[in-house]
């Protein structure tokens, strides 16, 4: 794990996602995730969500300018196929310890939809959200 990363390896079910975040995402994303864990500030979660979207774009030639517009469609603009969306959802679930159903994700079409959806999940009573919790 790079020395700049504030994310530590965990033995919990978050382990794979945390390791991936720590090893392969930029330091500012790891730091935003650490801040989110400490403060529950949704702007920090937003930054992490955007980084995860960008990372899961199957074809990097479709990578948008950063920060990407909320109106960008995951499938039509960023080339997400159903597998990439599933991969991304599993990653979000593991990292933020939330549960996302197929019905819910089918309603998410744009980056803006996804940001709002994850914010709602993290704020909701049923979401675990407390990073580091098993």
């Amino acid at each position: 794990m790079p020395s700049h990363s504030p994310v530590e390896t965990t033995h919990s079910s978050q382990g794979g996602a945390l390791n991936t975040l720590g090893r392969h995402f930029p330091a500012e994303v790891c730091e935003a995730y650490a801040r989110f864990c400490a403060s529950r500030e949704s702007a920090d979660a937003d930054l992490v969500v955007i980084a995860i979207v960008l990372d899961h774009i199957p074809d990097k030639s479709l990578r948008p300018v950063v920060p990407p517009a909320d109106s960008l469609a995951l499938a039509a603009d960023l080339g997400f196929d159903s597998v990439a969306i599933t991969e991304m959802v599993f990653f979000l679930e593991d990292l933020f310890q939330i549960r996302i159903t197929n019905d819910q994700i089918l309603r998410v079409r744009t980056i803006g939809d996804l940001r709002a959806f994850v914010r709602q999940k993290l704020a909701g009573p049923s979401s675990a959200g407390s990073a580091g919790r098993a």
Partner: protein
Amino acid sequence: MTRRALVTGLGFITSIGNDRASVVQSLRALRPGLERVEFLGNPSLPVKVAGTVKEFSVDSASWRDWRYPPRYQFPRETLRSLAPHGLYALCAAEQALADAGLAAAALADGATGLYCASAGSAFLLHHHLAQMHAVRGERGNPMGVVASIAGTLNFNLAAHYGIRGAVGGFAAACASSSHALGCALDDIRLGRQTRMLVVGAEEVNAETVLPFAAMRALSTHADPACASRPFDQQRDGFVASGGAVCLILEEEETARRRGATVYAELAGWGQAADGHNVAVSHPEGAGLAEAMRRTLADAGVTPAGIDYVNAHATSTPAGDRSEALALRSVFTAAGARPHVSSTKGLTGHPLSMSGVMEAAFCALALREGFIPGNANLVTPDEACDGLNMTRATLDLAPATIMNNSSGFGGSNVCHVLRQFSI
């Protein structure tokens, strides 16, 4: 006359080299690709040596952690569904395309097919199933199936290159990629395809290798220089290996039209099973002998017309002996004395990929004009009496070569390759 099939491109990720030039050098100089290894962090395991793949680090279950030569670039949508040996296979395919002077886009013409062979990735399958059990079935990697199961090579390479012709996989253990090559030849002869990619690949990790230790099939020699010694009296088992080889086969007129450079003609193939035992070859090599006879007949060649046999011999006591007896019954009994060697003394035994790897070695030998030697053959098994065992690599240009493969269940497959000039 049926259509001819010509070998027009080769790609190598092997223990003895990751490109054609290195492989030729290793075959000529008898430079082995085996190294000391320690599986599962357990120094007390009896298996100490393997045919390792250099320049690649693919120990992680996550493709994000893999390291490989930067000359290979693949998009995320390809990498996410690969097993470690799938990465080897793609790299070998890229090499073969460049070697053949073909653009990747040419593979999407509908006349190109793809046959592959591997045992799948036991490593990734174990990883994904362990994850599934850990969360009581509630989640899993959506790419887990297509990255892990047998067939992963053809799934991934066909999708990556947009191949629209015949696509499939073969599972006959150590004869698998020889079946793939034979069936590719049939497809070209029958006019079903004008070009076939044949790919074999395997991983070198605990999950692939150690189950063979449980069968007592692996060498326990600790010295990489001499652990693999096919046909030698001191052999004590095979040395596992891995990597990938891609061979491009093209119908003669197709190759002519585009001015392809030809390594050799794949002139015939044949197969016959032992009908004897699930894991042990027939003690007299009956099935292999019959496979050789059928192959000679298919190629229209007599035993005396074969200059060199690249033997399957993996360095196991039983298997090498039965192959030697099979060779005697086909060649010695007919008064023929082709050179015989097994290149597994250099490479180790890469399981499913060995057939196409050794067919590619034969193609190199035909084009470059040499006969590979049999490393570590000091005192041949008495079963080799009368055979022309070839210890050192010879600067002799063979015109016609036979390539042998055998796998579990007694499957035996042979090919004949011969010189060909356009």
